[in-house]
């Protein structure tokens, strides 16, 4: 338990132009304490640090020393090297629900550190996803789930409506199912100038997209014993969806080298009709300085697969505290500050999805008051999606290693090097070896 001078102050926070629900704050006097931290870097993430670090230092007298600030994949490698060398000389690090289970027990169980009144301010399901083997190893920063952005004018065009109905036999409206996405993507495509849609095509990104489509089709990646079962009708159907779009040239030829920046910038370039993407891109897409589709964007919940479920691959960015941290109460205070109402409101204004229910209410109220219909639509859609559709990947240490054997086989099938059945059979065999080696069966 924390030492004596940890102070809990129940207050009502006022910041900016809104007032949020009562929040348990976690201040203390940490004069002379310096916390070494390793943080995820990049434009989308660093604004938070510029505001919260001075705020925390001013209120506690402590100091923050940023040891590392790099993208999450590089940070992941660095932390793995730190574990191997036993050199865990930092207190706080960025984390993610999909990565956390890899790191063993280097991070403290925050159930023993954070007062229950603080934890009560977060969405319970997200805290559950932040828990590994019964240990709460991270405080959630913001959550991610994807929904479908589209160019509104394409759906309002009378010729498009008539031609689509004549060709496919149903009305052209924003898609409700992934089969409709495929029809509409092929209909809108006019390569190389315009494509119906796109997808992230490599590494964990395409593996995650495949995973959520398998779930939406009524399948699963693993059974209860973690034996791979994605080589199934649902799996083949999911993979065939990627193949059909690629063969129809409804996605750019280079899509298998695309990651998140490529798809985001692609939609903003105005050459893509529909784009499944995260909430964090919304502000960028609707900014005329960055985007050619600003003012012409619609958004619907991620469509459904053949199993009647919506896709909803989800995860949360987070912060963790090392077990070796010598100033745990100061680190707890800093973790709270990084995920506090103030911090989450800063990120929500940039379009990121908060992990505190109070901030959902506050940001929606703020956007209503401002009359910002677009961002209001974004927050309402993502709130519903996170509440009803979101599911995490299997929270197991082998997740990233598993995606590394899966994605080359998905790519091989998309490029026509293998049939979908063969590709999934090979991936399934390799995945079985990984799970056997890890001792699941």
């Amino acid at each position: 338990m924390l030492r004596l001078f940890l102070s809990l102050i129940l207050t009502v926070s006022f910041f900016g132009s809104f007032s949020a629900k009562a929040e348990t704050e976690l201040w203390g006097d940490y004069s002379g304490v310096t916390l070494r931290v390793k943080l995820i870097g990049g434009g989308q993430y660093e604004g938070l640090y510029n505001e919260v670090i001075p705020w925390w230092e001013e209120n506690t007298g402590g100091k923050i020393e940023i040891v590392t600030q790099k993208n999450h994949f590089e940070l992941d490698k660095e932390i793995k090297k730190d574990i191997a060398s036993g050199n865990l000389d930092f207190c706080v690090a960025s984390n993610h629900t999909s990565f956390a289970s890899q790191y063993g027990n280097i991070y403290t169980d925050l159930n023993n550190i954070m007062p229950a009144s603080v934890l009560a301010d977060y969405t319970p399901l997200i805290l559950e996803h932040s828990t590994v083997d019964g240990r709460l190893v991270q405080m959630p920063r913001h959550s991610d789930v994807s929904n479908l952005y589209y160019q509104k004018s394409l759906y309002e065009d009378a010729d498009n409506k008539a031609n689509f109905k004549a060709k496919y036999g149903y009305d052209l409206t924003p898609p409700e199912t992934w089969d409709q996405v495929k029809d509409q993507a092929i209909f809108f495509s006019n390569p190389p100038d315009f494509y119906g849609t796109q997808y992230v095509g490599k590494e964990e990104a395409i593996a995650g997209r495949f995973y959520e489509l398998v779930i939406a089709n009524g399948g699963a990646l693993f059974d209860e014993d973690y034996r791979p079962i994605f080589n199934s009708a649902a799996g083949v159907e999911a993979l065939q969806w990627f193949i059909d779009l690629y063969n129809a040239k409804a996605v750019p030829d280079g899509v298998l080298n695309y990651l998140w920046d490529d798809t985001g910038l692609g939609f903003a370039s105005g050459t893509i009709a529909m784009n499944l993407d995260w909430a964090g891109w919304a502000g960028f897409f609707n900014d005329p300085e960055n985007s050619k589709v600003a003012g012409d964007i619609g958004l619907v919940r991620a469509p459904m697969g053949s199993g009647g479920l919506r896709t909803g691959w989800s995860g949360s960015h987070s912060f963790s505290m090392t077990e070796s941290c010598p100033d745990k109460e100061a680190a707890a205070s800093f973790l709270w500050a990084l995920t506090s109402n103030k911090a989450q409101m800063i990120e929500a204004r940039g379009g990121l999805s908060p992990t505190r229910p109070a901030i959902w209410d506050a940001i929606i109220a703020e956007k209503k008051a401002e009359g910002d219909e677009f961002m209001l639509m974004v927050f309402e859609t993502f709130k519903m999606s996170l509440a009803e559709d979101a599911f995490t990947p299997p929270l197991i240490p082998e997740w990233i290693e598993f995606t590394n054997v899966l994605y080359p086989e998905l790519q091989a099938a998309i490029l026509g090097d293998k049939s979908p059945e063969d590709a999934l059979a090979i991936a399934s065999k390799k995945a079985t070896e990984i799970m056997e080696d890890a001792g699941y069966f």
Partner: protein
Amino acid sequence: MRKFLNGPWVLLMPTLIILTCVVLLPLLLSLWTSFTPFKLTKPDTLYRFVGFRNYERLIGDIDFWIAFGRTVLFLAVALNLELVFGLGIALLINKITYGQRTLRTLMMFPMMFSPILVGFQWKYIFNDNIGLMNNFLREFGVIQPIPWLVDGILANTSIMAAEIWSSTSVFAILLLAGLLGIPKDPIEAAKVDGCNSWQVFKNITLPFLMPFVFIAMTIRSLDVARAYDIVQMMTGGGPAKRTELLWTLISRTGYVDAKMGMANAMSYISIFLSIAFTFFFFYKLVEARQRLSYE
């Protein structure tokens, strides 16, 4: 003891200690890990000896051997093309009498870029949608975009183009140094005897230059693995492993999958490749020197 303290060993000790710490111990440690299931995230696995299990698995791993073969092909083609282009540039620069220093400096520009930056640049050049190459070709009526970084042959060629652009100047500089050191007398004598330019190049310039060629080849074959960053940036070894080289495979196995024991086993097998290349070039170097001294 006094004899030892006064002997040459004392003078060699600092070097031996540093080499042991910096080279020998890490090599022995990595060799040991290749006989363990060592995972970065599970430090305890460092002490679990599994014999040749990692090596046995690699022997039966077709993906590893395909990457191995592709790496050999990549090395052979890239190094030879770099040699040809570097020799051509060196010969041209050697001919000019005005502005040679400026050209030598300009020639070194690609070496000043970090491989990561080179990878970014060439990824952009070969991007199928917004890349310079496809937009350039479009001006000449090639409307359908060419998937430079997707098609197997094109993707490997694109990576090789980036690597050759980045490193040809190393060859050019070393060969230019060789050209500047060739004595003028035999060349002038050959010309007086009626040899044409090709005969002078083939029978005098090239034999004098061969030791420099093999020194350059040896150096480049050892540091060509720096191209890892270029490959990682441009394709990451994909799509569908079409551009997978040993370096991308080992890096992903060791740092992303955290299976450092397996990655080190891969490294030790691939070390034989480096040793084979280096041995071959040293053998050719000695041979070229001997031939030069006989002549």
